[in-house]
C-alpha cells in the first residue's frame, strides 16, 4: 500500500508539493492530459476578495468600479451572505491557481486536481482558447495595461481617463470579435503591428509612443463615400473596435485605452462560451484523480468521504420549483454529460448506439473526451452530446413563453421520444452567447452630413433593450464618437420598433 499523502485536515507546503506530484502523475499518465506548467499560490480571504474585484486577474488597472465590487463583495462576505470560492484559476502560462489558506488538505487536493489539471488542460487545448487567447502573453499584457492607464492618468488627468474607461466598460460586451473572417485578418495584421510596438514600448519605455490608427485620417480625407464606408468595415458589430479605429476626435491614448478594454473582453470571451464544458471538464478530472488516489490508498477513507461531500454539493442540481433553483448548474450539467460520455463509450445501450454511432462502444474514454474538450463549446457540446438518458435523468422540459399567448406558458416539449431533440436544441441555444447578447452593429455613418453614427439592434423574439440602460450606454458611446448616435431597433422584417438618438454631452472632448 502506498503511503498516504496526508492525514487529517492539516497541510503544509511539503504536503502541497506531494499532493501536486500525485495529482500530476494521475493526470498525465492515466488521463493523458496536456497542461501548461503549474504555479500554485496560497492566498488569504482578503486576497481572494481582491482577486474577485479585479475579475480574478492578479494584476489589473485601477478603476473605481473594481472598488465598488470589492466593497460589495466584502460587505456580503462579512455578513456571511456569500462564501468565497475555493480557488481561482487563470488562463495563463504558467497556469496560476489560487488556493485559499482555509481549505483543508482534502480540499486542497480537490482544488489542485480541479484547477491545476482540469481547467489547465481545457485552457491549453480547447479551440476557442487557442483561437482567441494568448496564455503566454496575458500577464505581461495586463501589466502593460496597468502601467499604461497609470501613465495616462498622470498625463491627462484621472477624470479624463476615468471617463474614457467608463465608456469603454459600458461597451465592453460589444467589444468582441465573434467570427474570424476577412476583416479579422486585417485586425490580426494590425494587432501584430501594434503588438510589436507595444513590446518595444515595454522594453524601452517611451511615453511618446502612441498608436496612430489609420482610421482617423481616413474619415477626414476626401475619398469617395462608398470607399470610406468600405474602409470603415461596415457593418461592424465590434463597437469598441470601430470607435478605436474610426472615432473622429479621440486622442491616441484614448484609442489605446479602448483597445486595452477590447483585448481584455476578447480574452474573457471564450470563458463565457465554455462555462459548462470548462467546469464539467475540471469536475470530471478532479473526480477521476481523487478516486484514483483513493484507490491507490493515498487518501484515507475519511478524507475521501469529505471529498465526496464537497463534490456532491458542487454538482447539486436543484429542480425548477426548488427555491434554490437559479438555472442550470454548469458543474452539474457539465459533469453529468462527461460521465455520460464515459458510459456511452464503455457501456452503451441500444438507444445510445442509435444517437451516438460515432462514439458508442468505442472503448477509449479519454481519447473521446480529450477530443470533445478540444473541439466544442457549450452550445455545440450540448447540442451534440446531451443524451436522452440524461434528459430523462434531469427530467428536462421546454417552456415557451409568448406574452401574446393568453392561455399562459406553453410546455413545448418534454423528455420523451417526441421532445428529446427539441429540448436539446433549446438547451443548446440557451448556452449560445450569440443568442444571449443583444445583436447590435454599426451599420452606417453619415459621413457627408452630420457624422451621425447609426446602429441597428436586430431584435430576436421581440426582446428589446432595457430603455434606461440603453440610453446610458448610448450616452457613453456618443461621448466617444463626439457626434450624434442613433440606435434603431429593428425586427426580422426590418420593421423599426424603437429609435434612440443621443447627442454627446457638452464636455470639452480631450483632443490631443
Amino acid at each position: 500500500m502506498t503511503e498516504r499523502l496526508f492525514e487529517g485536515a492539516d497541510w503544509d507546503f511539503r504536503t502541497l508539493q506531494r499532493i501536486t506530484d500525485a495529482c500530476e502523475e494521475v493526470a498525465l499518465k492515466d488521463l493523458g492530459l496536456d497542461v501548461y506548467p503549474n504555479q500554485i499560490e496560497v492566498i488569504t480571504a482578503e486576497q481572494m476578495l481582491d482577486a474577485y474585484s479585479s475579475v480574478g486577474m492578479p494584476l489589473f488597472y485601477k478603476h473605481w468600479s473594481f472598488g465598488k465590487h470589492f466593497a460589495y463583495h466584502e460587505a456580503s462576505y462579512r455578513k456571511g451572505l456569500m462564501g468565497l470560492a475555493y480557488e481561482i484559476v487563470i488562463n495563463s502560462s504558467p497556469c496560476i491557481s489560487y488556493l485559499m489558506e482555509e481549505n483543508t488538505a482534502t480540499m486542497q487536493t480537490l482544488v489542485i486536481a480541479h484547477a491545476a489539471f482540469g481547467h489547465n488542460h481545457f485552457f491549453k487545448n480547447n479551440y476557442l482558447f487557442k483561437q482567441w487567447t494568448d496564455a503566454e502573453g496575458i500577464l505581461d499584457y495586463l501589466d502593460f495595461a496597468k502601467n499604461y492607464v497609470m501613465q495616462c492618468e498622470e498625463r491627462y488627468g484621472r477624470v479624463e481617463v476615468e471617463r474614457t474607461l467608463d465608456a469603454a466598460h459600458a461597451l465592453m460586451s460589444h467589444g468582441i470579435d465573434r467570427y474570424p473572417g476577412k476583416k479579422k485578418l486585417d485586425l490580426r495584421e494590425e494587432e501584430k503591428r501594434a503588438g510589436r510596438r507595444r513590446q518595444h514600448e515595454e522594453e524601452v519605455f517611451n511615453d511618446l509612443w502612441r498608436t496612430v490608427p489609420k482610421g482617423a485620417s481616413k474619415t477626414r480625407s476626401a475619398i469617395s463615400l462608398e470607399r470610406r464606408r468600405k474602409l470603415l468595415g461596415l457593418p461592424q458589430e465590434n463597437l469598441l473596435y470601430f470607435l478605436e479605429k474610426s472615432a473622429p476626435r479621440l486622442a491616441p491614448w484614448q484609442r489605446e485605452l479602448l483597445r486595452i478594454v477590447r483585448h481584455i473582453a476578447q480574452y474573457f470571451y471564450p470563458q463565457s462560451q465554455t462555462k459548462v464544458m470548462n467546469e464539467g471538464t475540471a469536475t470530471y478530472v478532479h473526480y477521476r484523480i481523487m478516486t484514483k488516489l483513493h484507490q491507490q490508498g493515498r487518501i484515507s477513507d475519511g478524507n475521501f468521504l469529505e471529498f465526496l461531500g464537497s463534490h456532491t454539493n458542487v454538482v447539486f442540481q436543484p429542480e425548477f420549483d426548488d427555491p434554490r433553483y437559479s438555472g442550470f448548474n454548469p458543474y452539474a450539467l457539465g459533469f453529468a454529460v462527461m460521465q455520460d460520455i464515459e458510459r456511452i463509450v464503455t457501456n452503451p445501450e441500444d438507444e445510445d448506439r442509435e444517437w451516438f454511432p460515432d462514439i458508442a462502444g468505442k472503448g477509449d474514454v479519454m481519447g473521446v473526451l480529450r477530443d470533445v474538450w478540444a473541439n466544442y463549446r457549450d452550445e455545440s457540446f450540448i447540442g451534440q452530446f446531451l443524451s436522452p438518458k440524461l434528459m430523462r435523468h434531469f427530467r428536462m422540459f421546454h417552456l415557451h413563453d409568448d406574452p401574446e399567448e393568453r392561455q399562459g406558458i406553453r410546455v413545448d416539449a418534454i423528455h420523451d421520444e417526441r421532445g428529446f431533440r427539441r429540448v436539446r436544441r433549446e438547451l443548446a441555444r440557451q448556452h449560445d452567447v450569440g443568442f444571449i447578447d443583444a445583436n447590435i452593429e454599426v451599420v452606417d455613418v453619415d459621413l457627408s452630413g452630420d457624422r451621425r453614427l447609426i446602429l441597428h439592434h436586430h431584435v430576436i423574439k421581440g426582446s428589446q433593450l432595457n430603455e434606461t440602460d440603453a440610453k446610458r450606454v448610448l450616452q457613453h458611446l456618443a461621448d466617444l464618437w463626439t457626434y450624434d448616435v442613433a440606435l434603431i431597433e429593428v425586427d426580422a422584417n426590418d420593421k423599426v420598433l424603437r429609435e434612440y438618438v443621443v447627442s454627446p454631452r457638452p464636455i470639452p472632448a480631450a483632443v490631443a
Partner: protein
Amino acid sequence: MAIHIIDRRLNPGGKSLENRQRFLRRAKSLVQGAVKKTSQERDIKDVLEGGEVTIPLDGMHEPRFRREGGTRDMVLPGNKKFIEGDYLQRQGQGSAKDSGPGEGDSEDAFRFVLSRDEFVDLFLDDLELPDLAKRKIAQTESEGIQRAGYTTSGSPANISVSRTVKLALARRIALKRPSKDEIDELEAEIAACTDEDERAELIARLEKLKAKTKRIPFIDPLDIRYRRYEKVPRPVAQAVMFCLMDVSGSMSEHMKDLAKRFYMLLYVFLKRRYKHVEIVFIRHTDRAEEVDEQTFFYGPASGGTLVSSALQAMHEIVRERFNPADWNIYAAQASDGDNSYSDGELTGMLLTEKILPVCQFFAYLEVGEAGGSAFDLSDSSLWTLYERLRNSGAPLSMRKVSERSEIFPVFHDLFQRRETAQEKAAP
C-alpha cells in the same frame, strides 16, 4: 515538469485600497449624505466608529445593453407532471421564475462598510479650521528641508550626476571635442594606410585630435552641479483646545450634555488636523479652576457666575504652558448666557485684549433648555455682550443650541468652508 508553489499570504494586503478610494471619491456626495443620515441616528460617541452605510446605486450604476421582454424559451430540470401541450398559468407580473434567485441581489441600494477613518473623513469633509493658513506661515518653529534646483557649489555628497553629465556632454559637443570613435577610426585608417605621405598627414591629424581631447576634458569642474536644498518652515503640528464651561446652578444636565457633544466634535475635528491635541478643561462659577474631564462634566459645583474668571484662568494657562508661537489655540465656551452684570466690562476687555489675539478660533455656544425656549427669550447678558464685541470686529463665533439634533448642524455651520472669513450673524 516543475511546479511552483508560492505563499502569497504575506504579500502586502490592501491591493484594492486604491480602487476603493476611487470608488469613494466618485460616490462622495452619495456617501456623504448617507454618512450624515447615519450619524444623526447615532450617539456622537459612536459617530466616529465607522460602520455600514447604504447608498443608492443610481449614480454608481454601470450600464450595459440588456435585453428584456419578448418571447422566451427555457429548458428547466425537474419535470414532474407536465406533458407536451400543457399550459402553465403565469403568476402575474414578475413570477417566481422571472426573478430567479440569481438576480435576487438587485442593486437598488448598495451597502458597504466604511472604516473609522473613512467615516470621519467624510463626516468632516466640507469643514475647515478657520485661520489655519495664516498661523501656519506666521508662526513656525520647526523647519523642513526640500529640494530647490541646482547650484554650482556644495558638498560632494550632493553632486547631481545626471545634471553634471548632461552639462559636460553639452560642453563637449559645443567645443567639438573629438569622440573616441573618431580617434579609433583615424587610427584604423592609419593602420590600413600604405602611402607614407598620407600616413604622416593622418598621424599629424591624429596628434592634433589627441591634443584637443586633452585640452577639452571629459568632465570639467565647470560642469559640476550640486543638488540644492532649502529650508522651509513647517507648520506647527500641535494644538490645544480650551473647553470653558459655566457650571453654576443654572446649567442643567441637558445643557451640559449639549456642551459635551460640541466639545467632542471639536476634539475629533482638531485631532484630524493636528498630530497632537491637548485639551484643557476650565470650569467656572464665580471663580474658575482647571479640572479633569470627569469633574468637568459631572463634578458638582455651585455658586454665582463670573465669566471673566474663566477667561483669566485660560489666559494664565496659555501664558504658562502654551506659547502661542508653538501652539494653535482653540477655545470653545459653553454657557447658558448668565453673567453677573458688573463682570461684563472685564469679560469684554479680557476677551478682546488677551484671549482673542492668541486664539485661532473662539466659539461661544449658548445652550438652552430642550424645547427651544432660549430662542424665545430676549438675548442673555453674555450673548448681548459678545454680539456687541463681534459687531465691533472681534473674531467670535457664536451660536445658540437647545436640542441635541442641532449640535451637528451648528458645528457644521461654524466650520463650513467659506469664501470669506466673515462670520454670518447667528439665526
